[in-house]
């Protein structure tokens, strides 16, 4: 809704919203607290003491770095693929109307609308049927499939908001198809793609359900965490990693928010 011009929110609404947000955040604070506990084996409450030791310990754990580098690699590759596929799809769907258009948007949504476990075991059994050995690419294959929709949604929304006459204006002024793409289309949807890409990256980075099925013996950060949480060596290390991931993802989320928001205003200002 647009701004309600004058009235402020009723107290009950404020309270309900605040309680809801609190509910969302307290458990995360807990993760942070346990990143600094002095207790190593159990999660004792309240923590017996606090220490910064785990930051150093985490830094020196090679398995953390391995998992991290695999996760970054997978997320980066998936994001690139998702951006390419999502943009193509969004462009096709929003620029023209054609038979089967609805089906395509359904197809794109399907990988997140169906439970991840289905994607996971479908891919896994396909891999074993075709005798494809597990590798980074098998993980990427799964991740890219459900990341497409994030980029697609962002791009479609932007295409919808970007006046169609911009492309015509460009051609009218003498730019051919490729020039138009480079000078008009790309700059206009760029931020949306970036935002979509960031969300896709984050989505891939935290994915565990599909990954369990497509990773084989490789460890991404979430798989490492799963192992580590169940079979603890130094429990706070897991929390340190989780905390760092939260803090590091906060930035791209904020950036993507501002990217999509600001350019909405610009794109909307055309009319």
């Amino acid at each position, binding site marked *: 809704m647009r701004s309600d011009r004058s009235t402020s929110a009723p107290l009950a609404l404020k309270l309900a919203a605040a309680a809801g947000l609190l509910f969302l955040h307290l458990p995360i604070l807990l993760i942070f607290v346990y990143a600094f506990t002095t207790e190593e*084996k*159990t999660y004792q409450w309240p923590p017996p003491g606090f220490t910064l030791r785990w930051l150093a310990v985490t830094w020196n754990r090679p398995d953390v770095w391995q998992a991290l580098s695999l996760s970054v690699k997978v997320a980066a590759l998936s994001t690139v693929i998702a951006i390419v596929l999502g943009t193509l799809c969004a462009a096709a769907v929003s620029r023209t109307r054609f038979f089967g258009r609805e089906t395509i948007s359904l197809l794109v949504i399907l990988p997140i609308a169906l439970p991840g476990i289905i994607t996971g075991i479908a891919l896994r059994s396909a891999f*074993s049927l075709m005798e494809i*050995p*597990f590798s980074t690419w098998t993980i990427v294959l799964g991740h890219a499939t459900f990341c497409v929709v994030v980029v697609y949604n962002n791009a479609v929304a932007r295409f919808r908001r970007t006046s169609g006459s911009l492309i015509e204006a460009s051609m009218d002024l003498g730019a051919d198809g490729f020039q138009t793409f480079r000078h008009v289309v790309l700059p206009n949807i760029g931020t949306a793609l970036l935002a979509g890409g960031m969300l896709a990256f984050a989505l891939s980075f935290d994915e565990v359900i599909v990954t369990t099925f497509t990773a084989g*013996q490789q460890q991404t950060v979430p798989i490492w965490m799963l192992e580590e949480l*169940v*079979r603890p*060596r130094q429990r706070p290390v897991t929390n340190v990693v989780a905390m760092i991931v939260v803090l590091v993802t906060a930035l791209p989320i904020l950036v993507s928010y501002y990217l999509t928001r600001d350019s909405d205003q610009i794109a909307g200002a055309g009319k």
Partner: protein
Amino acid sequence: QLKEIGPAEGQVTIIAWPGYIERGETDKSFDWVTKFEQASGCKVNVKTANTSDEMVALMNEGGFDLVTASGDASLRLVAGKRVQPINVDLIKSWSAVDDRLKNAPWHTVDGVHYGVPYMWGPNVLMYNTNVFKEAPKSWKVVFEEMTLPDDKTNAGRVQAYDGPIHIADAAQYLMHHKPDLGIKSPYELNEDQYKAALDLLRQQRKLVGRYWHDAFIQIDDFKNEGVVASGSWPFQVNLLKSEKQPVGSTIPEEGATGWADTTMMHVDAPNPNCAYMWIEHSLSSNLQSDLAVWFGANPSVPAACTDGRGMLTKEGCTANGFDDFEKIRFWTTPTSKCASQNDQCVPYYRWVSDYIGVIGGR
């Protein structure tokens, strides 16, 4: 079948029970991997599995060299042609293996060896020593509702294993308490016996909050969830004790089921040479000795009890039940062809679905 051991491939991948293959990450003094890796040039990759079913599934999927299969998995692997015969001539330490295990039926089919024994032990009853001043005498504490020594009910405070093989524990309990059912072996049950076992488990369902599936989660549950008694492995008992938790373990009067694990090799093992090297290494008495202490189990190489090359002592062997071999009912896969009940037994696949039903409250 390999005729001779060639050069190392550089790695070997093993499916193992948790705690079976340690490289000093949980406790620095328990490490029997690092040295092997240095000596053989084979990097060891471990995939832990929590149930026998999981192991079979992983082996069916392939890509692994070795598995430490219990008796309820080993024959299935043989029947499914997932494992290859072992050329014992290539294994120097074969002669050191316990004679009771050398030709055990869970890895020897028609005289062919499909693996070498690794470790064996009982499923013990673990209990909280604050609640039980002295060890419980009977498995009754986990099967029937009762008041515990601390004057509180056992409902919600006991656990059971989240695997169909737990039906055998119930059958073993009935063998002792309802002799008129005529159970000869907890793995060979006819319809009536099977039904009685399930009924007992349904009764147990009311007492159990959550079944244990993972050794480490059971450890958490004893610490945080107020669980005071459960069937368990010596492994958990040892870990909890090392954390100074108030637990003890016992083999109650009904006896216990147990496991005897065999290192088996995948038919399509990608690294056969390293696999043979590991098999040889797995029988070295200092490994057997340390592992037995670590896991609270018994070595398959008797010398490990005595030769002092590891941490194990003669007393330790006795405590872990080394002399109770005959009393333990080792896990085997139930099939319909069973000698004791005229081939009228309930096969394993029904154990699987019925146990899911029981846990689901049906």
